[in-house]
């Protein structure tokens, strides 16, 4: 005989079964989401470990290659050293691997452009010393209007400053300076190095309408004009027809 009491229990029991089902489903979904999250964590960790392992192994191989200098050359570059008023450009071979990049001296001659840049920078630095009165082999500070490079290799020629500037250059720079004509000239905008890039004029030679470059010692840039002149090896310019400022000298390319 069914009593009311039994009916209530059945209903409650039925209701609870539904709730447990929903609860189980929610729990399962939460569990799956957490599992996916944790799996992603673990997979990501495994990948990171693998990456670290490969990285360590590659690093070890690349270090060996770098120590033995067996890595292939991937490019060239320059190491620039400024020392005691001189700028030295050292050509280098770059050896770039995946993890380690290194370089070594490039055993070849400097390019004309590099030698030109180096020589101009060095002359400028010696001139700065001359102005400050600290250039070796000179008495006092330079206060004149111009220093002419013609015959500067001769200690008995000129005013002594040209010889002092020339003597302070390196052998390579001296050889380069011997191939050009240069003068440091005071203009209304200050001192510039005027030079003929592709010819040396002796003190017995001169010319007009020659291509003369102007080197700005502060910005290290060049301008040229076709209206330059050389008188007894001394370089000058009419001061007109200047090109825009450039970082290169076409004759040295």
């Amino acid at each position, binding site marked *: 005989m069914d009593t009311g009491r039994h009916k209530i229990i059945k209903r409650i029991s039925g209701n609870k079964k539904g709730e447990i089902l929903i609860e189980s489903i929610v729990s399962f979904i939460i*569990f799956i989401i957490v599992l996916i999250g944790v799996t992603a*964590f*673990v997979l990501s960790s495994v990948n*990171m470990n693998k990456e670290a392992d490969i990285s360590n192994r590659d690093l070890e191989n690349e270090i060996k290659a770098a120590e033995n200098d067996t890595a292939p050359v991937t*490019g060239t570059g320059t190491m620039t*050293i400024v020392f005691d008023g001189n700028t030295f450009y050292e050509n280098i071979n770059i050896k770039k691997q995946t993890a380690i990049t290194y370089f070594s001296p490039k055993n070849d001659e400097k390019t004309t452009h590099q030698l030109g840049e180096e020589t101009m920078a060095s002359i400028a630095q010696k001139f700065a010393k001359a102005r400050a009165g600290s250039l070796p082999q000179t008495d006092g500070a330079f206060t004149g209007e111009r220093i002419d490079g013609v015959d500067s290799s001769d200690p008995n020629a000129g005013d002594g400053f040209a010889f002092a500037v020339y003597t302070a250059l390196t052998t390579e720079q001296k050889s380069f300076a011997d191939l050009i004509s240069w003068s440091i000239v005071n203009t209304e905008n200050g001192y510039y190095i005027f030079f003929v890039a592709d010819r040396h004029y002796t003190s017995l030679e001169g010319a007009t309408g020659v291509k003369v470059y102007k080197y700005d010692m502060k910005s290290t840039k060049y301008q040229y004009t076709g209206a330059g002149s050389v008188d007894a090896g001394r370089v000058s310019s009419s001061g007109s027809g200047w090109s825009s400022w450039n970082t290169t000298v076409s004759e040295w390319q």
Partner: protein
Amino acid sequence: MIKKAIKNRKGISIPIVMAVAVILLVIGAVIMSVASGNLGTSNQEKNTKQAYFVAKSSIDVIDRSIRNGDMGEHIKNMVLTDLINSGNTAVNKNWGPFTLQVSFSGKGLGNFSAEDMQITFKSSSQATSGSGSNLQSATVTINEMKVSFKSLYNDRESYRVTVTYSYTGYANIQNGSRTWGTETWTLVDIK
């Protein structure tokens, strides 16, 4: 009795799942943290080694410039010029510290730099013929020439190095032109 049982099981699975989830998440986070640490250490190791190779490469280039290039030539000429300017027949002198600026250009060298480069040395020059502006020949000795600098990679990892050189040489001077003979640069030490 049934009522009690049903009452006890009500909502129990969600807290259990949450507890398990928290445990799993903590384990996952620990694993990830360890792996991330490994990768970080590996990258750190790579950067430190790279800084070492910036230093090593720089030394190779400087070594060439000192022994067979412009820097060495400039240094020995500084000593000789000093002897000439002094007017004496012998000069002993301590030089420096000279501060040098170094820069690199080239593909892949963007993160390379060298700082605090300095050179100091002791010289001893002796005229063997003539003196002052009439000096015709002289011996030049350079001792304890120390080139020191700090190489940097990414402006963070650094490597400090000091290289020591010595030099002996003989110079002939004719009409202001110098010729060097019987000369030796020696790399004494790298630290």
